[in-house]
């Protein structure tokens, strides 16, 4: 039976070494570029007409714009306007990565913990810096909500700090684990189709068909969750609870 984890293997396509650092162009790098190209092509081509009455494609581009703009407006408020391009890029990047990863023989780079963690830590550090720049030392009051009795402080402050620090971990593991689990499961069931023969093979095939539909939902949902959590963290940094 084929190894269901084989699909996650990173293969170097063009070896690049710069100053002792491995910066090789891998299949993961390729699919990152595909995602960028996919998003850019989708938005550029669909908006080519800039029509007053949008075509179907233009409508989709506008819909994605308004979807993220609404999310930022509702969760962060007017101050979030500055970060809209970042949040939008993040959402489209993850969404396209997840969707392209559903194509057979493709590679899903969001199923790699290092990739999701790099994105999550970027969001975490960025949001923390925004909070500190905006509120200076007052940012520390984030860990001691107003109105809490002082006696609670020794318990509450460590809890708040731990929960704050665990944000990048939970953010990255949620996306990575979901993508990896889904793809592994599909591969495992796919591996049963041929061995079970013409009579029994239909069952795992049917499961895979259902899973494919389910994975489309997960692909969108996880991109959405990652993005909305980014908005919520941004809101915390800007408004402090």
């Amino acid at each position, binding site marked *: *039976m084929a*190894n*269901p*984890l*084989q699909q*996650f*293997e*990173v293969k*170097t396509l063009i070896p*690049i070494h710069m100053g002792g*650092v*491995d*910066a*090789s*162009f*891998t299949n*993961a*790098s390729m699919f*990152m*570029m595909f*995602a*960028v190209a996919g*998003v*850019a092509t989708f*938005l*550029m081509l669909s*908006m080519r007409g*800039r*029509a*007053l009455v*949008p075509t179907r494609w*233009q409508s989709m581009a*506008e819909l994605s*714009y*308004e979807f993220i703009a609404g999310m930022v407006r509702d969760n962060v408020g007017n101050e979030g306007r500055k970060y*809209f*391009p970042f949040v*939008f*890029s993040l959402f*489209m*990047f993850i969404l396209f990565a997840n969707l392209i990863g559903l194509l057979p023989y493709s590679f899903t*780079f969001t*199923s*790699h*913990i*290092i*990739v999701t963690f*790099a*994105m999550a830590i970027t969001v975490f550090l960025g949001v923390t810096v925004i909070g500190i720049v905006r509120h200076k030392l007052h940012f520390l009051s984030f860990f001691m909500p107003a109105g809490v009795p002082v006696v609670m402080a020794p318990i509450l402050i460590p809890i708040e700090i731990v929960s704050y620090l665990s944000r990048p971990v939970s953010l990255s593991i949620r996306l*990575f*684990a*979901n993508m*990896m*689990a*889904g793809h*592994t*499961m599909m591969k*495992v*069931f796919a591996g*049963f189709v041929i061995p079970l023969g013409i009579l029994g093979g239909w069952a795992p095939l049917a499961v895979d068909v259902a899973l494919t539909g389910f994975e489309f939902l997960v692909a969108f949902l996880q991109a959405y969750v990652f993005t909305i959590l980014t908005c919520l963290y941004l809101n915390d940094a800007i408004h402090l609870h």
Partner: protein
Amino acid sequence: MPIRFLSVLMAFAIGAGPAFAAGLPQLDTSQYAPQVIWLAISFGLLYVLMSRVALPRIGQVLEERQHRVNDNLEKAEALKEEAESVAQAYDGALAEARAEAQAIVHQAAERMAADAAERLAQLSERLETEITAGETRINEAREQAIANIREVVVEVAGEAASKLSGGKLDNKTLEAAVDAALKEHG
């Protein structure tokens, strides 16, 4: 989603036991550097493309549409107001015309009533004169008749008196007697 992870574990137990031992590709740290570097490159590229080109373009189109819609709404509002003022003017003109018509009808009715009253007065005046004239004629005729009757009565009374008495009464005595009798009987 704990169920999902549980099923993955089950899948590993059934079919991928040995593969799992080989280690997850995700934990291969030698591949971390290229992943992070290319993630930075690709995401940076996407961010620049989005913030410089794609998003301003979409935003502009959306804004233009909003402007256009607002513009059209304003225009519609202005047109509606104009239509309302025209309707008001029309209503005013209609009311005026109606009042005028009513005045004309009223005047005509008054004039006709006056006319009729005048004609009625004329008619009754004429009738009055005719009635008076008729009455005068009747009186004259009556007096004439009475005068005629007197002569006949005087004659008849003379005849009757001569027959009764055999002699002839003179006219003067007869006339005085008849006049007295007529006066007595009206």
